[in-house]
């Protein structure tokens, strides 16, 4: 048990280190200089340009040697100083991220959890049942095959442009000021529904099909045959099959996180939803180094936390891991 978690925590720490290093290295390997780019917006005369360039390079530390910048980067990261946004100038990067974060989480968490739970239930119910299987399975393939951007266009087209049921963009009604009032919250929910549905539906099919295949496999297993031979009812056999089948699905969830997060970014982009996904694009189109780096690190931290949660759930669900992980790896 201890060894299992030591190993996991080591992996997480290394992943974090690699993520931070990549995040720092990519901008530095690219041609160009952020201060230069920023100042090119102002059409300055040479003298003023040089003075400003010098001041700003010093202010942002871009004139220091690379290794020093790298150390500064870590120090800032660990002390919670994530830099100041170029684009939204005096605002600290962390403030901008924390403003966008609730929107992203509100989309992502329910979409992941609900699609996982409902998809698995559907798939388990469909296994080895003719009628359900013939409907759930084809629908599952289609949902699994839908590209995020298409659903993020087709849903608002159908429900927004043609039928006028839901708004097609934004996080809340433009006439409203964020407040803790019923009008605002209802507007929030109203705008939340379509992007949520997009992320939810795309993930749903994969879980259903995966679960269906696993349950079929489990139902053919010797353990299931033994249960049946003992005279257990089919419902009981299925319940045990479901429990064993949820383990590979759970490790699948950890693997699928990156893709779902990507899909979420695509969806936010399509719906102009004010989450991290849209913030990334504002950072890119405004050449905002610090903001882009900050969001990247933040997403990595999010993935690591989610992985850790899944690990804990896995151990809770499967008592065998505690034993087997004490010995040799897998």
């Amino acid at each position, binding site marked *: 048990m201890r060894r299992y978690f030591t190993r996991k925590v080591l992996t997480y720490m290394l992943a974090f280190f690699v993520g931070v290093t990549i995040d720092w290295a990519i901008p530095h390997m690219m041609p160009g200089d952020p201060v230069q780019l920023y100042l090119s917006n102002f059409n300055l005369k040479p003298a003023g340009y040089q003075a400003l360039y010098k001041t700003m390079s010093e202010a942002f530390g871009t004139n220091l040697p690379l290794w020093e910048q790298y150390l500064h980067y870590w120090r800032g990261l660990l002390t919670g100083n994530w830099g100041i946004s170029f684009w939204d100038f005096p605002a600290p990067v962390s403030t901008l991220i924390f403003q966008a974060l609730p929107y992203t989480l509100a989309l992502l968490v329910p979409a992941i959890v609900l699609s996982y739970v409902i998809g698995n239930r559907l798939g388990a119910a469909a296994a080895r049942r003719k009628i359900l299987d013939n409907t759930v399975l084809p629908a599952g393939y289609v949902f699994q095959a839908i590209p995020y951007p298409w659903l993020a266009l087709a849903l608002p087209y159908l429900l927004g442009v043609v039928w006028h049921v839901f708004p*097609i963009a934004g996080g809340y009604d433009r006439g409203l000021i964020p407040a803790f009032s019923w009008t605002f919250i209802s507007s929030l929910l109203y705008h939340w529904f379509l992007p949520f549905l997009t992320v939810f539906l795309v993930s749903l099919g994969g879980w259903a099909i995966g679960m269906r295949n696993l349950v079929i496999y489990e139902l053919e297993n010797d353990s299931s045959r033994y249960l049946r031979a003992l005279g257990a009812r089919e419902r009981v056999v299925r319940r045990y099959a479901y429990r064993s089948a949820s383990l590979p699905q759970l490790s699948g969830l950890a693997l699928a996180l990156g893709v779902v997060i990507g899909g979420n970014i695509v969806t936010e982009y399509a719906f102009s939803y004010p989450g991290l996904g849209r913030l990334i694009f504002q950072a890119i189109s405004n050449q905002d180094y610090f903001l882009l780096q900050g969001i990247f690190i933040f997403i990595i931290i999010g993935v690591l936390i989610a992985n850790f949660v899944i690990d804990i759930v896995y151990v809770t669900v499967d008592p065998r891991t505690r034993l087997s992980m004490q010995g040799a790896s897998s």
Partner: protein
Amino acid sequence: MSALKGSAPIGTLTTGGPAPPLEAAPRRHGDLLYYALHNKKLVFGLSLELVFVLAAIFGPVISPHNMTDFFGSNQAPSAQHWLGTDNLGHDLFAEVVSGLQVSYMVGAIGALCAAFVGMALGFTAGWRGGILDEILQLITNIVVMIPALVLLIVIGAYLKTRGVLFEGVFIGLTTWPWVARAVRAQTFTLKSREFVDLARLSGRRAYSIVVRDIAPNMASYLLLVVILLFGASMLLAANFDFLGLGPTTGTSLGTIMNQSTLWSALQLNYWWWFLPPGLLLTGMVAALLIANVGLDEVFNPKLREQ
């Protein structure tokens, strides 16, 4: 060590499907062919995919217009322009057909790249075991945890031109862990079989044992994984392209959707601009998935319908 752990959920394309049994029993090819031809899913999926492939190959020949020609802008589909025109007056049928080719190309490059890297690392980890395995596992786990799309966004923000090859290779270099995990798990189980011991006793080199004795026993499983990766790569590429991170040289299905959003096709009700490309992509990937499940049933008797 269970084979189930090796079942690779490929991104959104989570199969979760169990690995085929690793019985090395001699299988007659005639039997496989019989089951393949009588499997409705496989036949249906492959036929559907064939239609799309033919459309990608012969589309430019049938298309009455060239992709670069200009006509009246924003026309609805008509006998003249089968899928209408975009804001610049380009014929959308011609664009979609060329997009099909690019999407297939990116998918193929991505899947092959991932298969190559994943197999190299998976066989090495599984065969050698020990500390090398630990290190490779660590690398795999780290690559899995870094979201590809976000990484590409950061890279793409600084790269001004990107080609189809870049996109394909990038996808391959971020999706190989699924192949590597599957291959490693299967190699582990096969490694302790008698026939492998025998091969080792005969003094053959590790490379030849892996290629001649281990790989053929998981060939069917590998094929399934690579097919899934092919579909997943096309979907991933659509995500990238839609965000404007796709190839800057050439039109793909995702790029068309990206253009349609940039010019507010959704708000202006130009449905012919953004609905067909995504629908085609859905069809292409769904056909692959259905064929894949059919193949799985052909290889794995336990899954066959009763």
